């Protein structure tokens, strides 16, 4: 019995062939000839002989080298790493199919080998596992299973003969020696990731809830909307993704990269203060979370070391943000404070913030004691802004205020 999937595959191939051959002006006689030719060509036996002979033009691989460089000629690896629940994203820890590269004219062979049969297994799997079904199918008058198997299995030959200068080759220290690693890209994994990202972003649940919210009169319901932000697209093979691999072509040559960035702030709009650093630069929204945390801590206060440590942490968090802002202003360069625009800025703040005074800052006699001033202003600013943000200052005791001043004193290096 011919499996329906194989039957359909051969029938489709036949129709494609005829579509290409038969034009509007083709005579009936010729039509008949082409039909006969097609029947012959796509009869199972002949197809097996033809396709098995072309199988060697293809390579199945888990890590096509062309993803790294379109001109890289390296071996076609089939990784066989084992699964372990070790918390690592790597080959072996996600089930993926092998990718293919090779002669574009042989890609129909790949399609055949990947056909899913009635029992859910692919043709190739049947061949590998030498099932009774495939044996019967392949043993015909002019073909025998074992030689067909040998030919088809050439797609899975993993040769490891050469690497390439086009690949990144990395020395990794191993005891007293090194191993040299040629780094390849697991195309199955990167496109599985893309598939999962898209499934998450465009899930039915997301769609259902979003549509419901938009309605003028939404139905009672509940659920979760899941999102992944700050993705970056990356292309392989430019305008010719088919030159890289089959899987790459199916994905239009574009995969997604997940963001791996520190929570660094956008500093594009930071300007030197015109009147006072504390008024102009320390907008309280920037510190809102710190103040909220601080408040939570005060509510939750037990006089144990953990809480006290946490209080320090929160204050230090804020100070380091302040330090970050100071650095950004200093990075603008020197001499800005000479301009009329900054006439109202206190001189000690100019010394503190303008790179022009860099050397003066180190000089006790000239630095106008700017650190002490910065420290005391900052303590007042923190307490004042906290009260303003939280609008409830009953919990803040004198000892807290003293403590904040104390931390600032300890960490005054940060303000220098």
């Amino acid at each position: 019995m011919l499996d329906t999937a194989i039957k359909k595959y051969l029938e489709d191939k036949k129709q494609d062939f005829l579509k290409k051959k038969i034009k509007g002006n083709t005579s009936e006689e010729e039509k008949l000839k082409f039909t006969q030719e097609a029947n012959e060509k796509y009869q199972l036996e002949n197809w097996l002989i033809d396709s098995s002979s072309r199988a060697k033009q293809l390579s199945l691989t888990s890590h096509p080298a062309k993803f790294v460089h379109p001109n890289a000629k390296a071996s076609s690896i089939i990784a066989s790493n084992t699964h372990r629940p070790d918390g690592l994203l790597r080959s072996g820890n996600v089930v993926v199919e092998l990718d293919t590269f090779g002669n574009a004219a042989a890609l129909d062979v790949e399609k055949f080998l990947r056909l899913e049969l009635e029992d859910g297994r692919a043709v190739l799997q049947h061949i590998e596992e030498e099932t009774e079904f495939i044996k019967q199918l392949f043993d015909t008058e002019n073909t025998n299973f074992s030689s067909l198997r040998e030919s088809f299995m050439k797609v899975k030959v993993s040769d490891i003969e050469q690497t390439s200068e086009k690949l990144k080759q990395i020395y990794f220290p191993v005891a007293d020696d090194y191993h040299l690693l040629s780094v390849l890209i697991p195309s199955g994994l990167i496109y599985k990731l893309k598939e999962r990202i898209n499934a998450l972003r465009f899930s039915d649940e997301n769609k259902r809830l979003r549509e419901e919210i938009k309605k003028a009169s939404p139905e009672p319901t509940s659920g979760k909307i899941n999102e992944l932000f700050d993705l970056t697209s990356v292309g392989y093979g430019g305008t010719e993704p088919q030159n890289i691999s089959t899987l790459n072509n199916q994905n239009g040559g574009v995969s997604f990269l997940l963001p791996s960035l520190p929570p660094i702030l956008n500093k594009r709009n930071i300007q030197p203060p015109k009147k006072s650093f504390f008024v102009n630069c320390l907008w309280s929204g920037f510190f809102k979370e710190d103040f909220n945390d601080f408040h939570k801590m005060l509510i939750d206060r037990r006089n144990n070391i953990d809480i006290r440590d946490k209080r320090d942490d929160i204050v230090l968090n804020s100070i380091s943000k302040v330090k970050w802002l100071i650095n950004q202003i200093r990075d603008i360069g020197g001499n800005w404070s000479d301009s009329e625009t900054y006439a109202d800025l206190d001189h000690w703040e100019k010394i503190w913030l303008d790179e022009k005074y860099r050397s003066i800052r180190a000089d006790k006699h000239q630095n106008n004691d700017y650190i002490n001033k910065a420290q005391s202003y900052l303590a007042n600013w923190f307490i004042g802004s906290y009260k303003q943000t939280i609008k409830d200052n009953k919990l803040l005791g004198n000892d807290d205020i003293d403590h904040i001043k104390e931390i600032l004193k300890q960490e005054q290096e940060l303000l220098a």
Partner: protein
Amino acid sequence: MSKIPASVLAFEKKLVPSDGIMYGTTWENRNSQVTPLKLQEKSVRGTISNRLKKSEEGKIDAKIESANLQTVDSCALTPEQDTLKLSFTLKVLSGVENPSACNHEGFNQSYTQAVKQFMEKNPGFTEIANRYAANLANGRFLWRNRVGCEDIEIRVNVLNEGNERSRNFQSQDMDMRNFDNLPSNVIELGSLIADTLSGRNEFLLLEIDAFAKIGKSQDVYPSEELVLDKSNSKEKKSKILFDVDGVAAMHSQKIGNAIRTIDTWYPGYEEHQRPIAIDPYGAVTNLGRAYRQPKQKTDFFSLFDKFSQGEKLDAIEDEYFVMAVLVRGGVFGEKQ
């Protein structure tokens, strides 16, 4: 001579520029008061300036009305400013005799020997280094911003501890088409660079401030970004300029390209009369042309096969070119 036997061969670049940051100022106060230049986003209506097809001629009004709105970045001095300041640093490194990767020990030795011989020559690296110095002094790295300037001053500071020193150059006086008759202060700077490239000094740190008097409110030209956008969004900007934290800037690569625009030894210089950037094939991007063709054996690979394996090159200029490509760095092993 046969091809080099190393299939893996790479060199790190020996001239390492930073990005160039752009400021606006006035010529009078250029040393005391500068303001970072911001990029502006503008919407412009595209105009029809291409030749219309015969069939479209009657529809010109409709075409003009439907011209696309485009968003572009731009950058200009304010009405008070007449001078552009461009600042960057340049690090010069020694060690050109050592490849960063090479998988053939015998070749490594013959290569190192060939380079050491070159270093001992007179002028050797001096000729190349003088040209780099000239390209700092003449402000070639200002690119389009250099065109039509009333005045240009370049300040080069040596930052190496204990050897700090500042030099000023009047760029307007310098000839951009050749490197003959260089002023003595350029030669001085050149000899510092040559000392480093030849390994007599490990590294040289330079800070460059360029001042170009381009006129009030004039446009300035930062680098353009190459966005690998795969979407076909309508919001797509047609021109995106480069900034560093919101300040207009010039790519380090673009600055590097100007500094190594020293090749006057290529076939075709007689005609073209302009130095081109050091490149293995003498390729010039905006002309879409490669002046050094492998067929004529004037490309880097043909010359390097000989030079690195101890054979003499026909002309010292060929050696200059080979050494300058090595200073530029790159991956030269596997067949290109």
